């Protein structure tokens, strides 16, 4: 698949429904920052389907997830690299419930994500539903429960 074909396939998924329970519009926007940097924006409930599509159908290689505490919501950025063209594809998803932030875990089909989901659970307090092993990874055993060091409201 060259870059042109990759672009076509990515734009196809924009309106493609994945199963009945999902909203018809899977992605809200596709941002092309450059030929080799593509951002796919979606809501949290669609992230699982988009990630599964990227990993299983496109064959992109998982890099990592960036968790960001934006003011109004949490952002998770799932970074993939499509190595045949060297294109970095990022799924940017928004978790709008700040009181009880949660999202479906992608570890069941992508074991590479196990550690990073545990890390984000530690430092941002996001619950990954159906994660097989959501125990602490980064924080020490005596770190107080409920204090998430990468949240903006945490006191120094």
């Amino acid at each position: 698949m060259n870059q042109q074909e990759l672009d076509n396939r990515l734009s196809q998924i924009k309106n493609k429904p994945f199963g009945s329970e999902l909203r018809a519009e899977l992605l809200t926007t596709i941002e092309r920052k450059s030929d080799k940097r593509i951002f796919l924006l979606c809501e949290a409930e669609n992230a699982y389907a988009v990630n599964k599509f990227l990993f299983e159908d496109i064959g992109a290689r998982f890099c990592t997830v960036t968790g960001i505490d934006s003011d109004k919501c949490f952002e998770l950025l799932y970074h993939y690299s499509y190595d045949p063209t060297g294109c970095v594809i990022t799924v940017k998803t928004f978790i709008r419930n700040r009181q009880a932030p949660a999202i479906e875990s992608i570890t069941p089909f992508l074991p590479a994500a196990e550690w990073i989901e545990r890390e984000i659970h530690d430092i941002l307090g996001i619950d990954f539903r159906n994660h097989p092993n959501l125990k602490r990874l980064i924080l020490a055993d005596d770190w107080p429960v409920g204090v998430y060091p990468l949240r903006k409201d945490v006191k120094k």
Partner: protein
Amino acid sequence: MKETVRKPVLAVGPFHPLQEEMEFFQLTIDGEKVTDIDVRISYNHRGIEKISESLQFDQVPFLVSRICGICSASHPLAYVQAVEEIAGIKPPERALYVRTIINELERIHSHLLWVGLAGHFIGYDTVFMWAWKYREPVLDLLEEISGNRNNYGNVRVGGCREDVPDETIPKILKELDIIEKKTEMLTKAVLDDPVLHARLKGVGVLTKEAAIKYAVTGPTARGSGIGIDVRRDDPYAAYADLDWKVIAQPEGDVFAKAVVRLLETSESIKMVRQAVKKLPKGPIALEVKQVPPGEGCGHVEAPRGETFHYVRSDGGNRPIRHKIRAPSYVNVPSFKASCIGQDIADVTITLAAVDPCYSCTERLAVVDRHGSITHDYETLLRLSREKTARLQKDIGAPELKLPPNGAVGGKIG
């Protein structure tokens, strides 16, 4: 009544018996076979992502070069590439070549370091002595260029801080010739050694399917037949101008990874030679006044695999988020695929760094295959002391007074 079966666990760490880093491997074993592995990390978590948010854009390279002493060229490079992507900067040609030279020299010394350590871990110290001896002149070259043997601090947003002086080029070329010959000799000696074939082939196999699932990178992926390399796939610095090839081996065992690293060392030597000869004239840095709001991803092929940095700017003079993913973060969890089913003795080299420590006896109980404990810690201690006493009696040493059975830590004699 059914007896509860206790699974014996062999604990390796957190103070590692061989390496200087802290990590904790818990191997669940059945006889000599490893049936499960649990890895605990982050004894040394330094919160670098958080510190980065409090530093200015031009200070961060010095912070991230301290993530790892060996990869201290790749981390800052990935970071500055992310920032340059936000700001839309293209550094001068000469800076791109200097970056390539530093990064390839780093790969040479890192791969030689690994070869030496791998030899040491399997008890082949000749390889260790050779590899580390040949690594030394590479560090000297890096010192001559950047002022430091490690932590070069040479890269900055918009270019480089120190140039490769034109007068050092003949010396670099001469040293490269010597290093190349030595590396060739080492490669042949290692790859033709029947003992190493017997010890490393078929050990710790990471299949291609598992490698994809665990998303491993670098020599770990290339040793499993996945020919990915950021230098070729998403070329940065001057790699697109150089003539080199990606080394991949299909077997997935420890031997394949050793082959990949050794042959890559030779490729890197070729790359440095080409880059030094082609080194264009001109400035080595651009003045960068401001980083506009935006986000950027930078990735670099570090010696261990892809280093990934994500930076977000709000137009101020500090990043508001800086995410770092080092290659080992995806390579280490693949132990779950490569170690299970191995003998304990093979796990040593499969973890490439980890030596199960048998002196950790206080955490170990001898268990037979059905899970019932035959000798516990106290019994082992008593048996050991009785044996010592017997031996001393045999050789006519003064008699040893044993403390009462089970008095752990009691003084002897």
